[in-house]
Each structure stands twice: as C-alpha cells, then as structure tokens.
C-alpha cells in the first residue's frame, strides 16, 4: 500500500487514477460480455444476470469495490483537474493545444463528466429499480411478478424497444466513453511505469481497439434491442 506521503504526491495521485481506471476497464469488459449474451441467448443471459445479482461475492465484495472505484475515479479526477488548473493563474493569450496533444488527452474531464451524466441515467434506468426490487421489496427470486419466468431479459429489452431517445443518449454516451478510453487505456500503463520501445506501440494499438470495440459493443446491443420488438 502507498503511505500517506506517497498517496498525496503527484505520482501517487496518478497511480490511484490508473489503478481505479484498470478496474473500471476490467468491469466494462465483464459488463459487455454479459450484455452480449442478451443478444445471443435470453435464457443464458437471465441465468448469468441472476447469478451476478444474487451471488454474495459479486454483491458484497465486487460491487462495493466497483462503487468505490467509480466514485473515487470521478471525484479524484475532478480534484486533479482543479489542482492542475491552479498551477497556472495567468493563462496564455494564445495557446495551441492541438499542436502537440490529442483532443482526447486534453479533455478527459469533458468526456469523463459526460460519462458521469450518463451513469446518472443508467443508474436511474437499471441500478435503482434493481436495488428497490432486491433490497427494499426483498424479492431476491429474480422472477417476473406473478410468473415463474426470469425478469432480467424482458426488463432490458423494455428499456430500449421503441425508446429512440434513450438509444440516442446511450450512443452519445458511449462515443464519449470511447474518447475517454482512447487516452485512458494507454495512459494507465504509462502511469504505472510501463513504457517499452517494443511493447508500448502494440499496447497503444490494443488500447485503440479496446476503446472502439467495447463502446461499439454496447451501442450494437442497444440498437439490437431497439429493433428486437415488432414496431
């Protein structure tokens, strides 16, 4: 563990952002993998969703770590942005940011805040109803009310079928997530000290693939379910 002194050094701050970033990227991959099942097989998706929603390790170990990582990554990112702004009181009259750095790397706060706004919608759509059903109403069965069928796949589809505004919001949000990951993936490795003349160029390509493929996967799932019910 990092000591108090190191945690608040500039490098300690970066490393904490990178480590929570790594966990969130792993989470995205896991989330996408399960969501893809909703396109392939509704029964399998239901079973896996029920497992994830009721397994004590997932619910009481991984979920709190996830919540911590999400809150920390956003809050710490905003603190760092504020501190970095404070390091230059008098701004340049002319500053060509695009001459030497990508838009993605210079605007992580914008793509990050856009993802945060999306999370509010996403929590309202899925997480809050789930918490309400399971922990407030106490219904851990995973079954549709008054039926012996799992509710997860139907709930997912109902959120997107005939809901063009939600689908468009999701597409915009995932484009912002993609921009965030285009810098964030390779930046995380650099921060933890990984920079190699042979492997870093490969890692950057892998990062670009991750940053495009993962958000695109979520977008395809949203569009698939938008069209999956007869209009």
């Amino acid at each position, binding site marked *: 563990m990092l000591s108090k002194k*190191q945690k608040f050094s500039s490098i300690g701050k970066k490393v904490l952002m990178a480590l929570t970033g790594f966990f969130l990227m792993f989470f995205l991959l896991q989330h996408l993998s399960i969501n893809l099942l909703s396109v392939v097989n509704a029964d399998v998706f239901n079973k896996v969703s029920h497992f994830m929603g009721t397994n004590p390790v997932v619910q009481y170990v991984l979920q709190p770590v996830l919540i911590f990582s999400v809150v920390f990554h956003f809050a710490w990112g905003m603190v760092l942005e504020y501190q970095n702004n404070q*390091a230059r009181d008098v701004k340049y009259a*002319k500053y060509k940011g695009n001459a030497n750095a990508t838009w993605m790397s210079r605007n992580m706060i914008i793509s990050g805040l856009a993802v945060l706004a999306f999370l509010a919608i996403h929590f309202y759509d899925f997480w809050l109803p789930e918490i309400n059903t399971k922990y407030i109403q106490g219904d851990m069965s995973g079954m549709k009310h008054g039926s012996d069928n799992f509710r997860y796949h139907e709930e997912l589809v109902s959120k997107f079928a005939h809901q063009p505004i939600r689908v468009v919001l999701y597409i915009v949000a995932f484009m912002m997530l993609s921009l965030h990951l285009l810098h964030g993936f390779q930046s995380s490795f650099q921060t933890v000290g990984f920079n190699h003349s042979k492997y870093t160029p490969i890692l950057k390509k892998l990062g670009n693939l991750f940053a495009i493929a993962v958000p695109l996967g979520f977008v395809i799932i949203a569009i698939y379910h938008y069209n999956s019910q007869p209009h």
Partner: protein
Amino acid sequence: MNLNLKVWRQNSPEEKGQMVDYQLEGISEHMSFLEMMDVLNQKLINSGERPVAFDHDCREGICGSCSMFINGEAHGPVKGTTTCQLHMRSFKDGDTIFIEPFRANAFPVIKDLVINRSAFDRIQHSGGYISVNTSGNTQDANATPIPKENADLAMDAATCIGCGACVATCKNSSAMLFVGAKISQYALLPQGQVEAKDRAQNMVAQMDAEGFGNCTNTGACEVECPKGISLSNIARMNREFLNGSITE
C-alpha cells in the same frame, strides 16, 4: 517582411502585465527570432521606450536560456528547436505573432519575457546528483563497464537543457518530463545507484512543493521538447518512485 507583434510587457513580478502591440518593418527572413527581438528593442530604445527583457545566452540551442511562448507554442512553431534556433523564414509577411513568457505559477515572471526557473535548480539540489569521492584517487568513470544501450539512454536523458518548455506547454504546468529526465540519467548508470531509492522520492517531493501541476500523459511535453526527451523517462521516474516507496 512586415510583422505585427503582440508582446507581453510586465515591469516587475508584483505588477500586472499586458499584451502590447508593436509593428516592425523590413525584417529579413534570414534573421533568427532573437535577432528580430533585437531589432524591436533597438527601435524601442531609439524612441525612448524601455526595451523588452528576454532571456538569451548561447544562441545556439545549448544553454536553455531563451524561452518565449510564440504563437501558442513553446519555442515557436518549429519542433526540436529552441527560440534562438528559430528563424523568421518560419513566418510570413504580415503575420501577427504572439510572444509570451513561459507561464506557470512555479515560473513567476521577473520582467516581460524573463521568468524565474530556479524551481528547477531546487529540484536538482534535492537529488539530481551522485556522491563521488574526490580524494585524488577517483576512479575513471570509463573503468566501469556499462551496457551501450543504457549509456545511450542515459545520454539521451542528460541532453535535457532545463529550458522549461515541457512545463510551459503542458496544460497542467507539470514538470515531470524534466524531473523524469534528471532521474533517468542517473537511474540508468551504476554510478547513480547509491542514492537511487531516495532520489526519485526527494525530487518528486520538491517538484510537488514548487507548485507544478500533475502529469496527465498528454505527451505535449515530448513533442515540444527542443531536445526530444522521451515520455519513457516519465515512466522510468514513476517506476523509480514506486520502487522507492515500496522498498522504503
């Protein structure tokens, strides 16, 4: 060529500065940028005005004295050069040129375009050195075998002239490229191992105390560095720092 200059004028660290417009006529494209500034200053002196203060020394890209943020870029539009190596042929007749000091709270303006870069000196003092016995029996450095690759990388890091372009161009005013280079030039050599564990800790602590921002890996510093110092030096600094933290 005729030019419209917008130059930062500030009388002292305490006073507020402002951009001031100047017109220059008949500038040769073969002049260096600093020679163009000399022409401007002669014109100001002739008209009884105070000349523009700016740092310069070797005028051959080695000393790192000349700074200047020109048209939104540290050392101007040409990559891999200092301001003294920039020539007026990089501009066009009728151009408007913004000339500002390197800006960061850790680099306070002394006068006009002259900034105080002593924060870099204090970072160096905190760990940018090696301990060598100077008893008269000092071993020749070449007597220690060093892999060619490491010697080259250490030399690459040591080419940093401490000009501060990395800080000036970084949107966060971070000094990590400079500190990364200064740590790397010792971390790669056997002579630097004696203080290795404390060096990164102390230099990073001093860097933070000076008020530089945090690095967000935009890579702008690497692009604007007149000596082409690589971002890999920042990764090495991070490794050295974490290694020192964990094994402390």
